């Protein structure tokens, strides 16, 4: 068995391979397709969302390649417009929003609170199939040519666009149901299924993040669903509900859309923050610098995030008063994120910090998210936004948050929980190499876009002024690099699924509750009813050892003080 000395030594697998796990209880297709086990549903989601990521990623690479030259490079303008629209839709609704909550949330949330499953296992399965139905609709829409409205579907263009708007919005409408159902399921699970010893303030922070995100999902998604439904009706039956020529109001549409879509930004980033809040204490082997600061700021983001949508509309014709109010609330919501950032960094202080792939991604996350968040504060500054709005500056800003934040956290989660999910270790050296390239490729892709935006390059432009070409070329090369690193990651992880060395229950020597059970976990998560006596971040005493059938715990080798 090869281990790389990165400070963490995986515990060798000491169990008879015949132990029953959620993976080997049954191998039939039916046992997967009709499973109500949250872990298997999590895996199904992981596979489907990864497929969506690949699809959206291919679009992204085609778009970037098109921008190698100011005029046509490989596709025409109409194709370009439909492709950036579908890139946005696939990435936002098929990947970013469900990625962490449905895959890792499903897999881990019940385990982290010591439960056997989520509160409504069958509803959980239903939500997966609703998600699949939404994906299928979006793919049907793609096959019909796709929409060309931008992921924002601004009226009245969306009512008259010659493209396949109706199936696209219908697909998203369906996806919304899946999101809402998962949200409700998580809220109820968190409230009612916590095991003995798991009080609210002893829940792992990832659970807090899932809880916060579920609240936003359940409150905000219905608004989106109804607005998109109206867009579909306007397009199909020409009702003109958002069309000024019929007395409708296109600016009202923007209010409705952003009422959902700004909180949706937090739907995408809160789970990422949850992942980071687990990774940092584990690899620093220390309690978070302030558990409550992270937990409360999660709630703060969840609620204040609902009062900031107007910052997308500073030049859309809102009153000076509204603009000022949205401006100051946007500043406030940034504070909550800043609190988290400082808490993560201070968590390392006087800890014992190990370098492993999840930590590489934490550093990538930290740099990109802070950079992206700070440019967010900059665009929330009203007079500056007038120049930056709808330029590449904004494109770069939200990709720093979405890709730099959510995607790196997703990759961190993938590596961090890989041993728990598969029972095997991934190759650490490959992980570190790929993680570094992801970071470099990402930075190279999106940093030039800030400068493009400063220069006045409007977004969603097919043709552009040749003066912008050098920056576009750098950006495109960066995107290829990023794509290559993602493929590399996919490959070594797939190989490791089958050939990685066995991981043992708690390879990272974490104290969080999901590590108490063997990896991969048995069908009902824990071999015996778990009672958690330690805090999930208590590194003052050795890990009590994994839970065995019958309830006794097997301590590991003596720790180093």
């Amino acid at each position: 068995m090869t281990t790389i000395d990165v400070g963490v030594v995986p515990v060798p697998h000491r169990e008879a391979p015949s132990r029953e796990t959620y993976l080997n209880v049954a191998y039939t297709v039916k046992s997967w397709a009709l499973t109500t086990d949250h872990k298997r549903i999590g895996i199904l989601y992981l596979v489907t969302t990864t497929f969506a990521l690949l699809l959206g990623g291919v679009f992204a690479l085609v778009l970037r390649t098109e921008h190698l030259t100011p005029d046509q490079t490989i596709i025409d303008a109409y194709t370009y417009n439909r492709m950036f629209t579908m890139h946005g839709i696939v990435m936002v609704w098929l990947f970013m929003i469900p990625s962490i909550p449905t895959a890792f949330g499903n897999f881990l949330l019940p385990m982290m609170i010591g439960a056997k499953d989520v509160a409504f296992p069958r509803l959980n399965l239903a939500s997966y199939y609703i998600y699949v139905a939404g994906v299928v609709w979006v793919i049907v829409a793609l096959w019909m040519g796709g929409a060309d409205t931008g992921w924002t579907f601004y009226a009245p263009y969306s009512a008259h666009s010659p493209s396949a708007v109706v199936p696209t919005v219908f697909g998203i409408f369906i996806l919304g149901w899946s999101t809402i159902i998962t949200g409700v399921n998580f809220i109820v699970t968190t409230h009612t299924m916590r095991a003995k010893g798991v009080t609210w303030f002893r829940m792992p922070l990832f659970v807090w993040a899932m809880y916060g995100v579920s609240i936003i999902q359940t409150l905000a998604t219905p608004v989106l669903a109804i607005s998109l439904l109206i867009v579909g009706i306007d397009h199909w039956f020409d009702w003109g509900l958002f069309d000024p020529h019929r007395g409708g109001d296109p600016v009202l549409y923007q209010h409705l859309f952003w009422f959902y879509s700004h909180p949706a930004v937090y739907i995408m980033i809160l789970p990422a923050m949850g992942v980071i809040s687990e990774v940092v204490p584990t690899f620093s082997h220390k309690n978070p610098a302030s558990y409550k600061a992270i937990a409360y700021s999660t709630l703060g983001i969840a609620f204040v995030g609902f009062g900031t949508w107007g910052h997308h509309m500073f030049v859309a014709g809102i009153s000076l008063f509204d603009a000022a109010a949205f401006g100051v609330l946007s500043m406030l919501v940034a504070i909550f994120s800043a609190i988290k950032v400082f808490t993560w960094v201070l968590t390392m202080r006087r800890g014992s910090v190990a370098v492993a792939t999840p930590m590489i991604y934490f550093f990538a996350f930290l740099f990109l998210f802070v950079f992206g968040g700070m440019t967010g504060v900059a665009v929330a500054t009203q007079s500056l936004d007038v120049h930056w709005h709808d330029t590449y500056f904004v494109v770069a800003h939200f990709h720093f948050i979405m890709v730099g934040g959510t995607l790196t956290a997703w990759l961190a989660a993938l590596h961090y929980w890989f041993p728990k999910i598969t029972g095997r270790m991934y190759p650490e050296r490959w992980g570190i190499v790929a993680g570094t390239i992801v970071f470099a490729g990402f930075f190279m892709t999106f940093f030039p876009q800030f400068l493009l935006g400063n220069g006045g390059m409007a977004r969603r432009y097919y043709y552009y002024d040749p003066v912008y070409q050098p920056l576009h070329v750098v950006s495109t090369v960066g995107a290829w690099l990023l794509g290559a690193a993602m493929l590399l990651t996919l490959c070594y992880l797939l190989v490791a699924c089958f050939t990685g060395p066995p991981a043992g229950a708690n390879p990272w020597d974490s104290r969080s509750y999901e590590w108490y059970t063997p990896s991969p976990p048995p069908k009902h998560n824990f071999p015996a009813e778990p009672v958690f006596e330690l805090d999930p971040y208590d590194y003052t005493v050795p890990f009590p050892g994994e839970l065995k059938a019958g309830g006794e715990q097997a301590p590991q080798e003596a720790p180093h003080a």
Partner: protein
Amino acid sequence: MNNLLRGLLNLPPQASTYAQDVDLLHYFVISATMLGALFVFLLAIYYLVRYRRRHPRPLTAQVSTAVPVEIAIIGGLLSLFLVFWVVGASQYNHMMTAPPDAIPIYVTAKQWMWKFSYPDGRASMDVLTVPVNRPVTLVMTSRDVIHSFYVPAFRMKHDVVPGRYYTAWFQANTPGTYAIECAEYCGVDHSRMIGHVQVLSQPDYGRWLDGQGVRTAEGFAGASATEGGDLAETGRAVASRNGCFNCHTLDGQPHIGPTWARLYDSQVTMNDGRVLVADEAYLTRSMMDPQVDLVAGYKGVMPTYRGILQEPEVAALVEFIKSLRSQPFQPVIRLPHVEPINSAQRQEPQP
């Protein structure tokens, strides 16, 4: 320093009066936030090295950040962000509020071109001609979908929305030609919806007003002249031609409709209690969508003039109403109180 930073950040020239102020705030915000980001990152790297793991499976003491430290961090950041907000909001208010003496120009956007109508009746496509050092108000609307009028060199942008009349203003400070972009996605040729602002020196602008085409470095010709003469007088003629005086007076007396004397820039109360300022956008909206903002105490009997009045006529009317800004109220004769005819009998305006 300004030019150095502008170059580093790849910002376009600062060709409007507020561009430089916006850029100064930009430098401040970007450097403060980037220094902050750098500090956080370096701190993290320092901790990584200082507290790197030395044994497998170590134990550590519980350390929590002291509450005063947390409060200091939050308080410090919050005050910094509030400074951004205060300066940004006051600049924004300045940029969004046109000065009263600005030249009005009507902007009509449609897929995928810009049409500019000047108060003297001229019109031009895709090339906007303005004098240097004079404020210009754009009264903007769209024929089809939402567009956005964006001049990077002016640091100015505003959405152009069908069914609405938005005003935006700028005052150019350097003669030259600057790109206009459409910043809101509007269909297949969105990226081809490019125009130019031609900022002329005062003498050149005078010649342009006299109808002589002006040659600039880029070679844009002037717009074709149609009507000349005093704009406000043109407006008076337009008003009487369209029968506005059947309902509106010029001497302060309320009639079927409110008087136009001292209307411009005054505060008007609507029948739902809102108080609006009678600026160009409001006056234009009152002609195009009279039912949207009903003045308190009046019935909604005014017909819409959408499609009847051309943009230059609207500009002339607005200019005319503006010229009555300091009109003395002189109730010479009391007009009889006329009950408005009900809306079923509403007629087309008299020719």
